[in-house]
């Protein structure tokens, strides 16, 4: 069977916020642009971003992008690149105004300006006091953003390929990216998209963890494709967690439950937070609570048959209070934990939420890899933006409302860079002669395999291993075992067998392909986390505690550097953090405290 080849100027993989934003730049520049997505664009996981988008508009009180930059560098625990952070914070106003022009229904002040509200970690005057910086559209900011940008793309003639799964990057002999292979689910056909520019906007990969707030769609497809094509993944040890997700399901239980008097208990029914935080107890900060929960579970005081969760108890509260002050919590507990919280405590675990690392890019959205001489080189034809990319602006820890800002700013810059790179009108580079065979062979191998592992089994093994060995609080022995274990699990993930061999709408095949992406992200995370022998931001190790020499366990002397994991041989390299902003003085290193 011949594989058909479709020719575009640019192909974007992913139709969430970053993909749609870059598509606008390309299509409005008159370039023939395709966007591929596993789902209809307005059903992307960007919808789950409710909080808003940070921009120092100064509509409600004085604000300044320099203050936003300071907050972001500090939030990143100084691992964020200061050139990219300056670029993002300066550009924030422009991308919010763009959205306004696209018809985004922002909340308004009485005099018609965009209303802004405060959000954790965003301060005025270099960390002095909270500032109103977040622009929102009620509690559906991400959703409204997708709708506005989708309409703009339709107007600009962007071509959408909906319910398509990208398979692999295609690089030529010089390493330039010349297209992708993809699977149309409705027909089962494999098609090659031959392009002068490929932009990855595939979102996060939170499904590598057993407990994750991420929707099922977040399987790290872009990261898997990049890794298989020889592109390293940057800072993959850094994942943001929330302390109270429903065990097994991952659905978030709001912090408000503890605010209203909810108590965390271990298997002995003990209120264990009294030991870890005698004053704040259950209301201690997210990281303190998450670490205490993990310690209880690790030391055998977890609940349930596998002793792998703790309990959030509100049975002592008046049912009327629960119904009035915590609307929806009873329904969520019944639906997702199978317990009525008025009668029984809710099983909870620290739950993965956001991936700080990803495909290494510069602030122009161009993918950049080590040149072998201590510097970076651009991969021609390849761009990435949003959660799948690492610019890096979030460093070791992301501030709330900076994720929507990231996908807008770098979606736009990746699109602009591609427009710039294509403006000389050069012809498409030639596809490698074996491009069609390579695309076909991966599916053929999957279809032909007998006696392999089921997708369900492999996914369980990946997510269990990651949760148990590389969760929110990390231990040297568990990480070392975790590296060995994930390399065993990798064999399962490369030996998948599917029962359904049909061509049309074969979701088992797609899930197997997703699993082959998940395992790459899982390896990158485990190996990078084991290697980084310090605590920084979201990467917290038991053997790198808070000491006078290393406050918060952070060791700038040895570890102020980005991790790069290469799939080939699971090799790790490091590259320096950019400490020189574009136009302003650097934010000097100091201990991160709030």
């Amino acid at each position, binding site marked *: 069977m011949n594989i058909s080849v479709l020719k575009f100027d640019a192909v974007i993989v992913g139709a969430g916020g970053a993909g749609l934003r870059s598509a606008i730049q390309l299509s409005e520049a008159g370039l023939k642009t395709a966007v591929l997505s*596993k*789902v209809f664009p*307005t*059903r*992307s*996981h*960007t*919808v*789950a971003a409710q909080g808003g988008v940070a921009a120092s508009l100064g509509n409600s009180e004085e604000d300044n992008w320099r203050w936003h930059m300071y907050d972001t560098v500090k939030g990143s625990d100084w691992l964020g690149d200061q050139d990219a952070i300056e670029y993002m914070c300066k550009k924030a106003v422009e991308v919010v105004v763009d959205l306004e022009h696209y018809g985004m229904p922002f909340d308004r002040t009485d005099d018609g300006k965009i209303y802004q509200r405060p959000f954790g970690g965003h301060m005025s005057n270099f960390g002095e006091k909270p500032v109103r910086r977040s622009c929102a559209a009620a509690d*559906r900011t991400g*959703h409204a953003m997708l709708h506005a940008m989708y309409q703009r793309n339709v107007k600009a003639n962007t071509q959408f390929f909906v*319910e398509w799964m990208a398979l692999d990057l295609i690089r030529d002999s010089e390493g330039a990216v010349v297209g992708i292979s993809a699977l149309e*689910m*409705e027909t089962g056909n494999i098609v090659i998209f031959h392009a002068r520019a490929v932009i990855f906007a595939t979102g996060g990969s939170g*499904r590598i963890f*057993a407990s*994750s*707030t*991420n*929707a*099922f*769609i977040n399987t790290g497809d872009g990261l898997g494709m990049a890794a298989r094509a020889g592109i390293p993944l940057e800072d993959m040890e850094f994942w943001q967690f929330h302390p109270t997700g*429903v*065990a*097994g*399901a*991952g*659905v978030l239980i709001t912090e408000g439950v503890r605010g209203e008097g909810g108590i965390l208990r271990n298997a002995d029914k003990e209120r264990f937070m009294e030991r870890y935080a005698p004053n704040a107890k259950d209301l201690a900060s997210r990281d303190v609570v998450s670490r205490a929960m993990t310690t209880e579970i690790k030391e055998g005081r977890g609940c349930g048959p596998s002793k792998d969760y703790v309990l959030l108890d509100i049975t002592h509260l008046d049912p009327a209070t629960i119904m009035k002050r915590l*609307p*929806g919590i009873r*329904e*969520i507990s*019944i*639906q*997702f*934990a*199978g*317990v009525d919280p008025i009668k029984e405590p809710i099983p909870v675990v620290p739950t993965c939420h956001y991936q700080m690392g990803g495909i290494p890019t510069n602030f122009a959205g161009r993918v950049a890899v080590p040149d072998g001489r201590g510097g970076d080189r651009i991969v021609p034809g390849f761009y990435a933006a949003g959660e799948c990319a690492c610019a890096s602006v979030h460093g070791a820890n992301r501030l709330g409302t900076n994720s929507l800002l990231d996908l807008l700013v770098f979606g736009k810059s990746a699109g602009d860079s591609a427009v710039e790179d294509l403006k000389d009108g050069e012809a498409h580079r030639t596809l490698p002669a074996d491009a069609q065979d390579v695309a076909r062979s991966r599916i053929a191998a999957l279809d032909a395999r007998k006696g392999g592992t089921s*997708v*369900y089994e492999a*996914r*369980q093994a990946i*997510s269990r291993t990651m949760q148990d060995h590389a969760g929110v609080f990390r231990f040297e022995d568990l990480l070392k075992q975790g590296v060995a274990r994930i390399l065993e699990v990798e064999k399962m993930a490369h030996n998948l067998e599917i029962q359904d061999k*049909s061509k*049309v*709408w*074969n*979701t088992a095949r*797609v*899930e197997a392909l997703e699993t082959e992406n998940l395992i790459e992200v899982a390896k990158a995370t485990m190996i990078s986390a084991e290697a980084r022998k310090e605590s920084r931001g979201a990467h917290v190790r038991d053997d790198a505690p808070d000491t006078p020499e290393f406050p918060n366990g952070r060791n700038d002397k040895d570890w102020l550097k980005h991790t790069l994991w290469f799939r080939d041989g699971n090799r790790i390299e490091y590259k320096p953090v950019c400490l020189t902003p574009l136009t302003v003085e650097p934010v000097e290193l100091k201990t991160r405290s709030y």
Partner: protein
Amino acid sequence: MEPLDAAALSRLRWRCTRRAMLEMDLLLGEFLDKKFPSLSPEDQAAFVELADYEDIKLWPWVSGQEECEDARLAPVVVMLRCQTNGAQRRRDMP
């Protein structure tokens, strides 16, 4: 509604388990496996229609924060709201 053929059922499964919100992946996926096969043709048709709604509309209905006013869809919304088998779901996670 005519019974769905294998391809149509697979497409429905994809649309139920690759959604914007995790909550809806969990609820619709489980409902499709456990309840959908035994629904009346009318309720099956209503579920197929609901699966095409955006999560931002569907979630307030199935979490009990809003009532669905459409008489055809409302019975299925109530069934979705009443799923309580969280422990089973923990074993079935992909």
